[in-house]
């Protein structure tokens, strides 16, 4: 894969999955960066077994700030593209390759991976995802299947347009904010279907966080 792309993995207490994630990625990508959010387990020790760059935050700043650190690193090192992937093993390297190929060939500015196997989610998550899809379409007039997918690639040249501010309690909404900013600022956005492992094994949002995200989507559209 092109050396213009930096793959950023955001990790926090992922000692069980990080080795497999890095193993699958290092076969295909030259530049891999792991941003560790001050993990308390052996995540860092496992990362050090691989030829990847590691940034360790001294305190847990949340996902949003880790993404900012990775973006800053990519800017300093003058990469053209940055890809984000979760460290929990939910995403597959071959899907990331598809996303990268899409951004190279289609000349799009942001490529988002969306779960094609929504029927594998439980009812609560399926309803939540559908509500977000409908609300997003209503507000932004564009059909985005998974607005807060953690697997995405974008050009560094659009980083100013899509820059995110979600922090504190809302630090998990950075992906959704990027999507909203990209559509609002007329960036060229493409979507690629991806397969994810059954989501029951992974942390999701609860009802309160879901409602909070809906409020934030309204805020990003109307006020910001």
């Amino acid at each position: 894969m092109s050396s213009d792309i930096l793959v950023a993995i955001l990790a926090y207490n992922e000692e069980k999955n990080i080795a497999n994630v890095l193993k699958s990625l290092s076969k295909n990508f030259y530049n891999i960066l792991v941003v560790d959010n001050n993990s308390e387990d052996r995540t860092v020790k496992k990362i050090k077994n691989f030829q990847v760059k590691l940034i360790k935050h001294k305190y847990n700043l949340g996902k949003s700030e880790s993404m900012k650190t990775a973006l800053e690193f990519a800017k300093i090192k003058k990469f053209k593209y940055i890809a984000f992937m979760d460290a929990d093993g939910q995403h597959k390297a071959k899907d990331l390759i598809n996303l990268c190929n899409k951004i190279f060939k289609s000349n799009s500015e942001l490529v988002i991976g969306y779960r094609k196997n929504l029927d594998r989610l439980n009812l609560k998550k399926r309803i939540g995802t559908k509500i977000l899809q409908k609300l997003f379409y209503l507000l932004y007039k564009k059909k985005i299947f998974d607005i807060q997918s953690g697997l995405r690639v974008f050009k560094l040249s659009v980083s100013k347009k899509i820059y995110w501010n979600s922090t504190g309690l809302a630090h998990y909404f950075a992906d959704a904010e990027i999507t909203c900013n990209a559509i609002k600022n007329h960036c060229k956005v493409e979507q690629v279907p991806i397969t994810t492992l059954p989501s029951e094994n992974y942390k999701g949002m609860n009802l309160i966080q879901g409602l909070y995200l809906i409020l934030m989507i309204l805020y990003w559209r109307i006020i910001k």
Partner: protein
Amino acid sequence: MIIKTILSIFSIIFSLIMIYITQINYKKKYLNKLSYLLWISVWAFIIFVSLRPNFIDDYFINTYKVNVFYILSIISIITLAILYYISNIRINILEKKINKLIRAESLKDILNKIKDE
């Protein structure tokens, strides 16, 4: 009458706890002497008003012909809103500074490491 007494007891207990907390924060040097004295006066005043609610009522009704409860409610709401706003802004500024500092330090570490390689 019973409700008034219960409310007074509640506010006295609450104020005493707050005086204790203020004392601890002052000892830990989270508050300077001026803030410490100011907060102690506020809680002491609340205790006084709780013990003798008629004192203020009589003064305001006789002097200005208004019910003190109405005035106090408005002042309390405005004060709460101002205090909430100030602390919210201060927390946001502090959070941004801390995030920036930690991120800058982490980036510095890796850039130095790459330079050494």
